[in-house]
């Protein structure tokens, strides 16, 4: 009888920690992820607050001052119409950071959702969802973007907003790969015994998917997101030839690094492309470090 009647005592000052807080606390302990976080934060400050501190402005051009190497007036030199590279770098970060995050967030959201549903339910739902994913993968993105550019042009959408629409659409178009990754892993996870246990408890499907299965796929999702942010920052610039990148006078990192496309710049004007290259790399690196930290924080077996 002892065991049954034993009083349950919860000391009153015990705080209940939510999983989020716990993750956060663990993240804080992980040095690398904090380094990543600080870099990322720095990038945001650099991009969103930095421009206010610059003596230069984005619009003024000075052809005579074009392509000047770094000097005390222009810390990172000037571009082909004499604008300050540093200022453009800061402003470019706004677009690139937002664009990377927005499109990745969308594609991760849809990809995880679809992959989760598909892998969990299997059967015809899986079949239908995966065939839809197939279709999304098989439909060429370029013509869609060309059409999009034309439609936005006809509707006179403000040019500086278009890039976000594009990234939104890209996010919507690019979830299919992740959904297959998620589904693939869930296919094996759902056969494990703990899922039978969850079934026996009569849990809601949503709980089974999002509390039981998805957390086990989170590492893959994190990798996908990290890779995605890097590539969408670069993608933004690749889109420009379709007329979908940023428009002047707005800069973006992807756009700035295009300067390297000219061999002469590549060899002789490193100040044009090294700074955006470094920024992109640091951002991707930071997100990756942060992602790794998050992964570890979420991994119950790896805490020390």
């Amino acid at each position: 009888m002892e065991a049954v009647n034993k009083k349950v005592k919860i000391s009153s000052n015990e705080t209940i920690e939510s999983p989020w807080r716990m993750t956060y606390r663990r993240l804080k302990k992980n040095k690398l992820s904090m380094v990543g976080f600080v870099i990322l934060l720095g990038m945001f400050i650099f991009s969103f607050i930095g421009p206010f501190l610059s003596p230069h402005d984005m619009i003024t051009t000075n052809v005579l001052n074009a392509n000047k190497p770094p000097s005390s007036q222009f810390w990172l030199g000037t571009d082909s119409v004499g604008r300050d590279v540093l200022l453009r770098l800061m402003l470019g970060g706004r677009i690139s950071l937002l664009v990377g995050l927005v499109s990745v967030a969308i594609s991760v959201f849809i990809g995880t959702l679809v992959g989760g549903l598909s892998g969990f339910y299997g059967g015809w739902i899986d079949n239908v969802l995966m065939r839809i994913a197939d279709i999304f993968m098989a439909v060429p993105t370029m013509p869609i973007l060309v059409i999009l550019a034309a439609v936005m042009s006809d509707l006179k959408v403000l040019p500086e907003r278009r890039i976000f629409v594009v990234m939104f659409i890209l996010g919507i178009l690019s979830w299919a790969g992740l959904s297959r990754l998620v589904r693939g892993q869930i296919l094996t996870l759902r056969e494990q015994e703990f899922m039978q246990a969850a079934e026996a408890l009569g849990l809601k499907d949503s709980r089974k998917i999002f509390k039981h299965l998805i957390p086990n796929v989170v590492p893959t999702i994190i990798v996908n997101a990290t890779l995605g942010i890097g590539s969408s920052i670069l993608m933004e610039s690749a889109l420009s030839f379709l007329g979908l990148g940023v428009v002047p006078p707005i800069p973006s990192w992807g756009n700035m690094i295009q300067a390297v496309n000219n061999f002469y710049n590549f060899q002789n004007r490193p100040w044009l492309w090294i700074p955006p290259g470094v920024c992109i790399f640091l951002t991707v690196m930071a997100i990756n470090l942060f992602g790794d930290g998050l992964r570890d924080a979420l991994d119950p077996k790896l805490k020390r």
Partner: protein
Amino acid sequence: MSEIILSVRDLKKYFPIKAGVLQKTVGHVKAVDGVSFDIVKGETLGIVGESGCGKSTTGRAIIRLFEKTGGDVYFNGKEVHSLNHKELRAIRPKMQMIFQDPYSSLNPRMTVGQIVGEALLDHGIITDKVELRKKVMKTIEECGLASYHIDRYPHEFSGGQRQRIGIARALALDPDFIIADEPVSALDVSIQAQIINLLMDLQKERGFTYLFISHDLSVVEHISTRVGVMYLGSMVELANKKDMYKNPLHPYTQALLSAAPVPDPTAERKRIILTGDIPSPANPPSGCKFHTRCPYAMPICKTDIPEFKDRGNKHFVACHLLDKNN
């Protein structure tokens, strides 16, 4: 007559055997091959039997973790396998299972608190976080874990502790009926005793009904009201606990009882040694499935399937030997 809570009729579960690159089905493992029994509310039916004879499969088929191949399962009068998704979800909390494998049945990324408490949350039984945590703590303590275990992950526990998490998970829901698939085999005797006492206390207090699968004959004897013996996918003997242990009728049951280890290093052991090939559930022997190993096998055993019938006092046995005598 008391109320029948679970009624299993001729339950069958076959697994396809796949072979080759193209995974063609080449045969079936008849894991459960026509099992019938009733369980009365408030009783404990113990099931023993050779390993691999289909005990777990029976349990899983009952709560529909496997789709049955044939037969019916009535829970509180409803056929479990014909319920739709929603109805099934609704009866799940009333019918719980404690899993045999204590590790793989726990999600490695959830803490004990989440594992034990989530069903309560999910079914809307308890919604308040603090309340829930209290309830979870109470439950895990009842099951012999400590309240400080609540925020740990399964891999940090020993095998026995994990098993208790599984038990707590099932008990937290206050089900009417629990299938306990070897719930105590991984526990040390003291905890085992504690859990068994707990199960029995709960049964007394709340009228739980158990289907108790175990290899430990002494435990089964202690907890059960009736005991069923399975062999190769079928029930060969089903009787009142006392009848079964005092007067086992089926040769397999007799062998089983004789093999039980006694916790006394000096005790004398007289085991019935079963000889002969162990048959395969993919290709079960004709007639009485036990005839290949039965010390008393007769010609008829090879050809005719013995009838599973009442040999008096609700003692069901499927054996030709008894038919002869009668």
